[in-house]
């Protein structure tokens, strides 16, 4: 097992799959906001709360959010 450091985490938003449900911004408010039309925007360059973001990714009804490590 390779240990993952927090700064190696990135979030990929598949905007083509995203339909603007907005659940991610509720589950990961520290890292994900919504734009004027309800679509997700990453708030920070580095992820502040990896646990929240992972929960948001696994909960996305459109499977539009992926948490990646640098080895991906």
């Amino acid at each position, binding site marked *: 097992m390779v240990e993952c450091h927090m700064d190696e985490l990135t979030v990929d938003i598949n*905007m*083509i799959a995203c339909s603007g449900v907005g659940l991610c911004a509720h589950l990961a408010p520290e890292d994900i906001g919504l734009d004027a*039309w309800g679509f997700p925007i990453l708030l920070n360059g580095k992820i502040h709360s990896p646990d929240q973001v992972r929960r948001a990714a696994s909960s996305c009804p459109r499977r539009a959010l992926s948490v990646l490590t640098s080895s991906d």
Partner: protein
Amino acid sequence: MFVSHLGQAVHAQRFDYAAHIDHWGSRPMRRGRAGTELHREVAEVGLTGCGGSHFPIAKKWGPVLAAGPGGTVVINGAEGEPGSVKDAVVMQTQPHLVLDGAMNVAEIIGARDIIIWLEESAHASADSMGKAIAERQHSGDPLLPITMMWAPSGYLSGESTAVIAGVRGEPVAPTHTLDRARPWGHDLPILVHNVETLARVGMLGHTGAGEYPRTVLITLSLSIEEGVLTDRRVVEAGVSDTIGDVFDRHGVDAASWILLGGFAGTWHQADQARLLPLAPDLLRNNGLSLGAGIVIVVPRGRELLPQAAAIAHIMAGESAGQCGPCVFGLPAVAKALDRGRLGDVMDLSMMIKGRGGCGLPDGVLRMVESAVDVLQEKVGADDGGVSHG
């Protein structure tokens, strides 16, 4: 060596296969070491993608070669943008150079077949390419299995992930890819190359790096009204020329603004633009690009903002409609431009930028932001450089 230039072809009759052989000779096979040699020459002349990306072609083949033999080469003839007609001209005058290039690439990467990807409205190009395939078969010169496929006309019909989707029988729209160097995913490679790029690989296979003409093909539009281009011509220029050289050669003297690189390009005051180089690497150093070889001239006396707004509306209409920031954002940007609210334009741009599934919204925003930039520059200059707060 002027006759070996693509530009000669631009104004010439169509080269049928006999004329092609007479002028260029037979295509040397490019399997094995001969292929490695051409790959090296493609790197040596610094060939970059002529469809707008200007990505180094020799590098683009790396992941394809690593994937092993098999796969498909796509001749991408869907220009998509009204400011570009150079690929149509190449297909209609030098179709065999395009086929030579596609065969060279296919042999280098070990592809099994070739697809010609055209917009459904491109009848003349389709006729010329179709005739070229027949001429080759008639002469007994081998071609890989080659098929023509049709895309609905539109700005994104030639976008490379949309082309790959279309080739697979899926809807022709950009797809989400995490690995941009391997947009075909886990299946056999589908390598998409612009028509002019392939013609250049074909030409290089005949001339070698030493005699290869280092030129760019440009679609020069001499007028634009409400985003509609008129008086288009395809011209060829040397990579050491400037925009001013092209203007002088083609009698462009009453220009106010130019749009460099097409509807996803950048606006420039015409007098300043004259100094710009045409070499892709020099432009890139200035953060600029010719895109698919596009220069659009706004004649003197015409305002820039209405042109930028009209193009923004057209491009908003060209969205594939898949991503929220593009679907909602681009019309909002276009309306803010209509009203001259440049601050709102920049705020919207900052919110949308980098968030589309394909490059379309970022391209439009580049065009829009550069319009705001040059207008504000001009206001500064008209004021004698004194800020009025």
